[in-house]
């Protein structure tokens, strides 16, 4: 009796996934038994995909059992590849055509108010992640994937990057802790990734290891780095980490692990992590990268989240993580300029423009002197407010 390999998921609540079991045999050709919710509509299609994959790996005799709950091709293929790898050790990659036709560039300074974590082994949550318009979608290979599922998740995430349009969202992957995370890079970097999140970063060396590995891989677009600081040591090394590579665009803080490292409880007010958060903000500002705040762990507590977002912005953070699509709008609303802030920015810009037109060297608004950085910040506030529709493009008319 030959060994059977298994990959994927099946169960009452599982959707858009499948469980694949393969055992090799000596004769009899490829035998597929398919149980599928969509068998009448996609049975033939699935059969032909399975044949293609078996042909690709040169397997002539095997029995394959698939329990399918509406898995898309990229999911079926990832599950098949994972099962075949376990049986044969063949690490060639079976790649379906990619929907990503051209480079999807991202800018180091672009807005990252919201980044949505999506578990890396749960296809149904990937498909619609971007329709909720987070600034970034993070396909997570780390904490949301069970240790026994790490290998299959890596193949699924690779395929997802090729198969799913994330529309306007930046394409992000959180790799595993090093050294396993380096192997993740080999599979995901060639597939249009914009940002790699490095969990539990504690030293600049770890960032360099990731940067070097990425440097050695062929890629389709510029890949930025976002180290996540989740330990006391990481906090102490925040500045060296932020400046370890020119590709670092942001540091984010992970408060669940950080408070565990300190041996304290994470509270709603966050007093216990104030030092760490300010240290991150300061290091990031000094290094000219974005400081990004942790996730808010209770997705049902929308009021708590609202407060957290406002506080996060006031501390100097440029965004927060999301564990549920329902958090995106609330966080975004917390980070976009409020009416008072917008109004002030408009007045500053107008005062500056007036001073310039009069050839005055010094700008003042009321009794306050206005420095150049204040004007720059006011302009960026206005840009944001315009972008989110809280300020009309012709706002100058209101001040005539």
């Amino acid at each position, binding site marked *: 009796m030959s060994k059977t390999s298994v990959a994927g998921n099946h169960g009452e609540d599982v959707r*858009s996934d499948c469980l694949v079991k393969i055992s090799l045999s000596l004769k009899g050709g490829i035998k597929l038994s398919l149980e599928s919710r969509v068998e009448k*509509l996609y049975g033939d299609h699935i059969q032909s995909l399975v044949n293609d994959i078996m042909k690709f790996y040169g397997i002539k005799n095997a029995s394959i059992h698939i329990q399918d709950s509406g898995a898309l091709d990229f999911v079926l293929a990832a599950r098949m590849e994972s099962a075949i790898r376990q049986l044969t050790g063949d690490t060639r990659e079976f790649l379906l055509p990619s929907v990503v036709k051209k480079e999807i560039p991202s800018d180091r300074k672009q807005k990252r108010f919201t980044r949505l974590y999506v578990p890396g082994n749960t296809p149904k949550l990937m498909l619609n992640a971007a329709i909720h318009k987070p600034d970034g979608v993070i396909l997570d290979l780390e904490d949301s994937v069970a240790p026994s599922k790490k290998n299959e998740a890596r193949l699924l995430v690779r395929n997802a990057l090729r198969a799913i349009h994330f529309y306007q969202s930046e394409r992000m992957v959180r790799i595993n802790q090093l050294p396993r995370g380096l192997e993740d890079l080999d599979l995901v970097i060639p597939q249009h990734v914009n940002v790699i999140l490095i969990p539990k970063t504690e030293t600049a060396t770890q960032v360099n290891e990731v940067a070097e590995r990425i440097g050695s891989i062929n890629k389709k677009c510029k890949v930025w780095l976002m180290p996540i600081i989740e330990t006391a040591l990481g906090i102490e090394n925040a500045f060296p980490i932020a400046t370890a590579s020119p590709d670092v665009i942001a540091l984010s803080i992970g408060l669940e692990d950080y408070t565990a490292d300190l041996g304290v409880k994470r509270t709603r007010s966050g007093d216990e992590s104030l030092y760490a958060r300010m240290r991150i903000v300061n290091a990031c500002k000094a290094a000219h990268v974005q400081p990004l705040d942790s996730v808010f762990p209770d997705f049902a507590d929308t009021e708590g989240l609202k407060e957290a977002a406002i506080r996060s912005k006031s501390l100097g953070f440029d965004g927060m993580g999301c564990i549920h*699509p329902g958090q995106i709008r609330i966080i975004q609303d917390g980070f976009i300029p409020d009416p008072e802030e917008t109004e002030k920015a408009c007045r500053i810009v107008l005062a500056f423009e007036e001073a310039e037109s009069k050839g005055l060297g010094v700008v003042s608004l009321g009794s306050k002197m206005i420095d150049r950085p204040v004007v720059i910040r006011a302009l960026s506030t206005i840009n944001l407010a315009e972008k989110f529709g809280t300020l009309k493009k012709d706002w100058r008319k209101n001040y005539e």
Partner: protein
Amino acid sequence: MSKIKEQINAAGRSVPESVNGKQAFPYKGVGKHHPEGNKYGPRIPVCTDYPSDGNKLVPTLKDALIRCGLRDGMTISTHHHFRNGDLLANRIFDIAHEMGIRDLIWFPSASFPCHAHLIPYLEDGTIHHIEGSMNGPLGRFTSEGKMKGVGVLRSHGGRYQAVQDGEVHIDIAVIGAACADPFGNANGLNGPSASGLLGFALADSEYADKVIVVTDNLVEFPCVPWQIQGNYVDYTVVIDKVGDPGQIVSGTTRITTSPDRLLLAELTARFCERTGIIRNGFSFQTGAGGTSLAVGEFFKKIMKEKNIKARFARGGSNAYLVSMLEEGLVDYILDGQTFDLAGVKSMAENPNHVWTSPFTSYNHHSKGNFAGLVDVVILGATEIDVNFNANVVTHSDGYLLHGIGGWQNCLFSKTVIIPVPLFRDRVPIIRDQVTTLCGPGELIDVIITERGIAINPLRTDLIQAVKNSDLPVRTIKELKEEAEKICGQPSPAKFRDKIVAVVKWVDGTLIDAVRQID
């Protein structure tokens, strides 16, 4: 048996020339079928034939059925106000089976999964076929070609039409009621099986040869309000339990928590806001599904922000709609079906929460109906094609799974919006052609998906209204192509020639036929 001849109807669908031995008309187009003559007349009863003390109680349901002359081939009607908690229809056919009666036609206003109990009676010939809806297990049974006769699917309004123009002759109507008196006056408001209203049974009470009212809560004459008038009733029966309260109305109806569905609901509400549909004095109807409830909640938010009041909401009522009535956001609820206890309570206590029936709301043979007065209705669909035609009775794999309900009738509202995910479990919702046609595209205005909004080209006013808005408007073809890019192209469902059910349009003509699954 020789094959029944078929003809192509105005929607291009092949439909049979006769159904269960009776001649049938092909669909001719919206508003094109005009029968002439008088409405069907029930027999003339004489009041002196009935107990002078008004006491029509008989000991058991079986007695009542026997006194009504239950025999082979009769048409028996029941109603779905007890929804999945209905105990009555199953009991009636248990009795018929015991008595060895055969070839009955079951004429329910809708069926539910609890009626899977009847499958053995469909198999052994107690029941010949169903005219109503074939949901869940009954749908599967029918689609597999196992029913003796051909199923007939009608809308709530179409059911009224069929009764009024004599297309269906009801031999015995059995009306379950939460509350009744010995004379037969009945309502759905009071008692352990309270379901709100009995509107679905109204036509049956007026037109059936024999009418039985069954209750588990008998009160002394008079039972008020008499939603069903005892003057139409032959016999009354008291049994232990007419329905399972936990399955009739739920204590709470819940809004969806799915972020994808919430997004659909929000887009729908925003569309109605941007197009000016939500304005002072407007009217709306949303269903009781999780997404529809959420649409109502987003309406509420917009109405509060902009200080807008609606004149009326058509229900399906539930706690959410009741709260809008109580907060003064809507003047009236015109209720066709009550989905939770808050709805039942409100209907009993609030004079502005009014019970309606398919006669007022949907009927084809009346001098107008309410559906056309509604500004916007939010509906569901299993499939929609690139010409906005929609399907609600079968899934893309060809299996019958749902009834029509009031869906076809609601298409006559001023704006019909269908929020649907672009695909479900890999299956795209927008197709080149729907598997089964239930509603013509000319009546369907807007399809809202999480990946874009398609507006029927006939609605130039709506297209104009959202021209410069932030809404993601796309063509329906673009949406179809996007879904197929994600899901792959499904194979068409494979059918045999045999017709297992027909779908009636609201006027009684055949809009499509459902064939046996291969």
